[in-house]
């Protein structure tokens, strides 16, 4: 968008830049410096040695391979649903939206166990196939391996595609679709020649995020892939924690960051020259009435696919939390409120919820505070500095958590920045991860707000600040709300227990889940499932709350 000939001044993002420098740049520089100063460092030879090792080639290759495949599969699964969601009017849309939001918050261990309960060789689906469909042995063997990894990645990242693409598409001007129809376009033509090209910026952005997410995958590959698979992120963790080989870890971290940079350059190339689609200022949506039987069948098909694939694992979780060998009972939930062993580190579910919401709320606040100015800046700037700024703020997403966590330890060790062990580092690190999502949601939204609106407001004497505050933010409020809930969920699900100093007094729900699962006993597993259900419940409430916030905004008169 060219709002006037000048670019936005860099001062807009002064605070975000400072925060990024302090909480990302400084610790990264510190850990890299320490790593390369460690003894036993053979300089370039060592770099060469690592980069030519089989471990490295394999980890990079597999990271790349599974990330590309996961991204394609996620798009393949999510896009038809999103398009259906955008184009058609049908009952149960709210549920689809909610369903797409939930997986994101669940810890990997929980998802893995839910997956296995369903698709595993002894899972429900296989039992069903053996008992009722006449199979002699389990038809699926999805316990471990690439298919399990891919499925889990699709399960998680459908949220990303849905949030970005549906959020963007909901703001598209409905008359574009109507006019294509009035020119004789069939639904197929509308999807392929109008809707998809219009959605392209959000689809590319979603692909980028999904790719980076999978490229840096840790838990999913570790747990569902099994020991035969390894990504760069896993190798970085191993080199850091098991071998304490920081130089090697640093080199791998740099490769991962460098690679992200390269992917990002490709992304920017793809995004170039794409005219912003006009935004619908009314918010009627694109929903068309469903007429033909084929359409109705199609909708049912995709709804079922979503419920099967996204809903069933969640359902098996809920069942796991209330099903005991003596039948259904709330014993696991009741047990959450007891501390029979009088452990100092016992967390009541209430406090875990308060901590989780507190951290997630703070992280959301931070990521929105840096996300909105940066998105505003990026959407009104062109020229050489733009991609640099853009890429800079994307880096935390692809930086190994353990590298950054260790960087915190080294960097913040003396006043005034003696923040080690401070609770602020946790929401801060969550915000760094959530922030790129916020920017990717907001930039196309801000760009989409018709420049005419800005110009008209300027003619009426509005200052730049007023234009943003009074015109662009309110019109893009759906996207802002979407970004808010998105970053809230990212923080809610992150636990980062492996890499960050945690004060056990402020344990969150995911940390509690981990604690339960680290000791044997049926009660522990049941309580972990019950805690997971609480996590889902919070997400549902958060989702409904944001929906409500959007709904209470003053309605616009119909034209």
């Amino acid at each position: 968008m060219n709002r006037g000939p000048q670019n936005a001044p860099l001062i807009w993002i002064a605070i975000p830049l400072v925060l990024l420098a302090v909480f990302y740049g400084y610790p990264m520089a510190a850990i890299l410096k320490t790593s390369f100063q460690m003894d036993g460092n053979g300089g370039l030879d060592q770099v060469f040695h690592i980069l030519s090792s089989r471990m490295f080639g394999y980890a990079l290759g597999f990271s790349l391979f599974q990330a590309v495949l996961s991204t394609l599969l996620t798009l393949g699964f999510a896009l038809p649903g999103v398009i259906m969601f955008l184009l058609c009017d049908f009952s149960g849309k709210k549920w689809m939206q909610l369903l797409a939001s939930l997986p994101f918050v669940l810890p990997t261990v929980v998802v893995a166990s839910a997956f296995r309960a369903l698709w595993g060789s002894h899972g429900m689906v296989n039992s069903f196939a053996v008992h009722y469909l006449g199979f002699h042995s389990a038809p699926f063997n999805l316990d471990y391996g690439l298919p399990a990894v891919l499925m889990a990645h699709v399960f998680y990242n459908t949220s990303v595609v849905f949030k970005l693409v549906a959020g963007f598409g909901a703001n598209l001007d409905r008359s574009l679709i109507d006019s294509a129809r009035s020119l004789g376009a069939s639904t197929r033509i509308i999807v392929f020649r109008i809707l998809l090209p219009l959605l392209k910026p959000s689809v590319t952005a979603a692909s980028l995020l999904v790719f980076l997410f999978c490229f840096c995958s840790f838990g999913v590959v570790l747990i569902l892939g099994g020991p035969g698979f390894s990504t760069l992120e896993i190798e970085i963790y191993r080199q850091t924690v098991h071998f304490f080989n920081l130089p090697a870890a640093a080199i791998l971290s740099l490769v991962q960051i460098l690679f992200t940079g390269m992917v990002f350059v490709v992304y920017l190339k793809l995004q170039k020259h794409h005219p912003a689609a006009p935004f619908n200022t009314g918010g009627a949506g694109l929903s068309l009435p469903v007429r033909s039987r084929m359409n109705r069948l199609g909708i049912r098909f995709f709804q079922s696919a979503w419920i099967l694939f996204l809903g069933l694992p969640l359902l098996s979780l809920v069942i796991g939390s209330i099903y005991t060998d003596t039948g259904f009972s709330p014993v696991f939930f009741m047990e959450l409120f007891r501390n029979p062993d009088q452990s100092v580190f016992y967390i009541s579910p209430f406090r875990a919820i308060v901590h989780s919401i507190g951290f997630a709320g703070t992280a959301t606040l931070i990521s929105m505070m840096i996300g909105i100015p940066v998105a505003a800046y990026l959407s009104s700037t062109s020229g050489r500095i733009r991609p640099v700024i853009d890429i800079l703020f994307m880096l935390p997403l692809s930086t190994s958590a353990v590298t950054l966590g260790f960087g915190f330890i080294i960097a913040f060790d003396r006043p005034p920045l003696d923040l080690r062990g401070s609770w602020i580092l946790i929401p801060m690190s969550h915000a760094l991860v959530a922030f790129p999502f916020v920017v990717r949601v907001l930039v196309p939204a801000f760009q989409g707000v018709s420049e005419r609106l800005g110009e008209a407001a300027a003619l009426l004497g509005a200052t730049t600040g007023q234009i943003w505050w009074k015109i662009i933010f309110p019109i893009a409020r759906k996207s802002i709300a979407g970004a808010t809930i998105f970053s809230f969920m990212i923080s809610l699900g992150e636990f980062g227990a492996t890499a960050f100093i945690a004060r056990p007094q402020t344990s969150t729900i995911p940390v509690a889940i981990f604690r339960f699962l680290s000791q044997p006993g049926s009660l522990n597993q049941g309580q972990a499932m019950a805690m997971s259900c609480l996590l889902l419940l919070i997400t549902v409430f958060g989702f409904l709350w944001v929906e409500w916030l959007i709904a209470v905004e003053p309605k616009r008169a119909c034209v």
Partner: protein
Amino acid sequence: MNRSGPDFLELKCIAKSYGGLPALDDISLTVETGQILCILGPSGCGKSTLLRVMAGIELPDAGQVLIDGLDMTGVPVEHRSVGMVFQDFALFPHKTVAGNIAFGLEMMKLPRGEIVRRVADMLSLVDMADYGNRQIHQLSGGQRQRVALARSLAPQPRLLLLDEPMGSLDRALRERLVQDLDIILRHIDMTAVYVTHDHAEGFGIADQIAIMNQGQIGQVGTPEQVYRHPGSAIIARFLGFDNFLDGTLESGGMVKTGVGVFNTCESNHRVGETVKVLIRPDAAVLEMEGQGAPDQNRVSGKLVSRMFQGRNYRIRVRIPNGDELVFDLPNQPAPPGIGGDIHLLIRNSAITVF
């Protein structure tokens, strides 16, 4: 101006409601071949919904849509061969000007050469022959409007629907474009329905005007009929008429009001009934000495303001009961100065009684 032919579009008892609130309430309308019908109404009156029902974008809850004698009620928009121009033009931002215009032709699976030829024809029809390769965001508002028109006309629809096509343009541009649009539509003899809330625009282009309010059609007629004889006080107000006087009907069509008696030829009300009298602003002339019957069709008061508008003066007169009436007087003779007493004679053809 008036052409006539068989009814091309016919709406029968169309009804539609959203969440229990009626948006269209039993609407019946006809448009003759080659005619331009303008649906005029305030915001939220349901006129856009009615247009979308005609197009097939929305389905009515009840009623029928007949196009050229065929029942098209259930036929979706893509199979109606109806052209449509939207308020924000809805041009595809990812296609060029030519790409936009060609879109409908491609849907008809015309051969490539034919498409190129038709696009060129359309571009010259809207006087934009050199703009085929432009991107949409490089165009001005007026140019976009013309591209939108060309795009909707390219597949040679049988009926063109225009939904506030000037809605987002400034007034000066609007007046010129209404004229251009009028010329183009009549040149190709297009049957059209034009929705707007601006009566000047509507009067300028329509053969027939349908006034719509709260989901109902209030009045249908030629622009002249609607202008001269608004069907109700509400319609009159919507058309911008504000000179209302309260009165009582007496025998012989005479109405007695606070400022005097008016001869109105009124026959719809009973003698003794309370009525409202509308005096159109173009109905007055300055009273000369000894002119007109005494105490009939006269308005006297103090001149509150006068504005010279070239062809006429727009004046505001405060009558004895304190109300103000607005009149457009011929520029000769000049009215008295502000504050002075003024006496006006009213033509009785310009008086309507409700």
